């Protein structure tokens, strides 16, 4: 393997890591509140807003049903308006974050649903306001499962970012696509694969460790 290829692989790995974690961060910024709202507005939950709940649910479902590769292309005008370009790592962050957010929202909603309902009841009986219930009860209690949701999201984003590589997003995806698929360079393609596998394993391992550390059940 020549030095230039190694440089290319290192650069690709770094770009993939940046895309995964930065879009993961923005994805959570959008998805976490949405997930909490989806949970709180459910029937018989503390906010109980059926109309808002259904509206939110429909929006989330619409975005979840768009295949990611199409979402990238569909969002090009929006991406350009936000970051000024439609190619490269920073351009990829926009569809990646938007693509991850509804997925995260559902994972968060599910994490909260799996908490024993008695906890909310006890907090209400002790005089907690809805806001206090969210940040003093729901989030800390769901933390281990939210960390698991984060690992799942980040791993999904590794895959999405590679897909973005095929349409000029950079990262390992682009390296694999250009050198592996178009140039048919088996060594480079397999190196890309190996790096992606290692990245996914590290995320899963770290996520499991972290989740366990906060789990006192």
């Amino acid at each position, binding site marked *: 393997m020549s030095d230039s290829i190694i440089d290319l692989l290192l650069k690709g790995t770094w770009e993939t890591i940046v895309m995964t974690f930065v879009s993961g961060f923005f994805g959570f910024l959008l998805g976490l509140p949405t997930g909490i709202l989806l949970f709180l507005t459910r029937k018989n939950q503390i906010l109980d807003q059926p109309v808002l709940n259904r509206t939110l649910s429909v929006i989330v479902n619409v975005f979840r049903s768009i295949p990611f590769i199409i979402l990238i292309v569909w969002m090009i005008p929006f991406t350009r308006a936000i970051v000024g370009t439609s190619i490269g790592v920073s351009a990829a962050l926009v569809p990646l974050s938007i693509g991850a957010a509804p997925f995260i929202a559902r994972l968060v909603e599910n994490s909260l649903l799996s908490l*024993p309902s*008695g*906890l909310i*009841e*006890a*907090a*209400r*009986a*002790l*005089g*907690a*306001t809805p806001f*206090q219930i969210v940040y*003093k*009860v729901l989030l*800390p*209690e769901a*933390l281990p499962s939210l960390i698991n949701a984060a690992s799942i999201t980040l791993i999904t984003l590794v895959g999405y970012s590679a897909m973005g590589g095929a349409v000029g997003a950079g990262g390992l995806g682009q390296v694999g696509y250009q050198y592996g698929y178009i140039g048919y360079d088996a060594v480079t393609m397999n190196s890309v694969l190996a790096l992606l596998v290692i990245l996914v394993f590290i995320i899963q391992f770290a996520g499991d460790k972290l989740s366990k550390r*906060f789990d*006192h*059940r």
Partner: protein
Amino acid sequence: MIELKNVTKTFHQKDKIVSALSDVSLRVPEGKIFGVIGTSGAGKSTLIRCVNLLERPTSGEIIVDGKALMQLSNAELAIERRQIGMIFQHFNLLSSRTVFDNVAFPLELAGTPKSEIKTRVLELLQLVGLDEKANDYPASLSGGQKQRVAIARTLANNPKVLLSDEATSALDPATTRSILNLLKDINKRLNITVLLITHQMEVVKSICDEVAVISHGKLIEQGSVGEIFADPKHELTKEFIASSLHIDIPEVYQDKLQKQDNGSLNPLLKLEMTGKSVNEPVISEVSRIFDTDFKIVSAQMDQAGEVNFGVMLIELSGKRENYDAAIQYFNSKHIKTEILGYV
């Protein structure tokens, strides 16, 4: 202290309307322990949840410490709830917090300063006897210890009222007793009014001053524990009382028990003392008058209020010709007597 006036609660289930509570009224005087007993599905859970409006009644009035809760805004209600403690069957502790932080939780909600929280929490943990577990997580505690933490937590804001939702139903008998003693102690020492719901007559018998029986969302009978045990009117009430007075014939006796007397066996009697029974030392009277002896095989006697009641298995011996007269004498004193067989 707690007053429910004509409280009705209906639920909409699919197309039909289910009535969980209909026209329930009760008053719990300050400093008393009031028990509501009923079978599962009778509406007792809904009833206790209506008191702090975890469940909003369809109609009626809820007055706690002179405040009509139904008229309060959500924010006012949250503050008022701090005066109303509540403990649950499944404890509902926060698993992500240590014992200390669980007890500190309601104080944090109320915005108590950190230094104050520390002294208050340690004081409360001492009260429930768990000061050594302050830094443990709830997962490492036994059921009884969890309930103690929950009690400490709910006492943190000095509530005037404590609601207990089947607090001992998930605990074994020995732990149940220790939790009940703790509740009684809290009631006496801190003058906290307690409203509890349960399906166990033992709970009512051991700590309640007053009791109400709930069935199909209606209170069918209520009064002081002594009154109810002395003179239960309703069939269901009688069943509850009977269930707390269950007695089995010991196996050794079971094996040698004969249906018929062959002229040399002793009768095995079951005596039931209820509130109607005469409050006199009847057994020694019978022994003296009829020249008979008693061997107590097994007994479960109790006191609820002024009433002494219970059930007893005794083996009768002595002057054989007086047996019938002795049994009649018991019955005349309203002690229900039954010959179970001969041994």
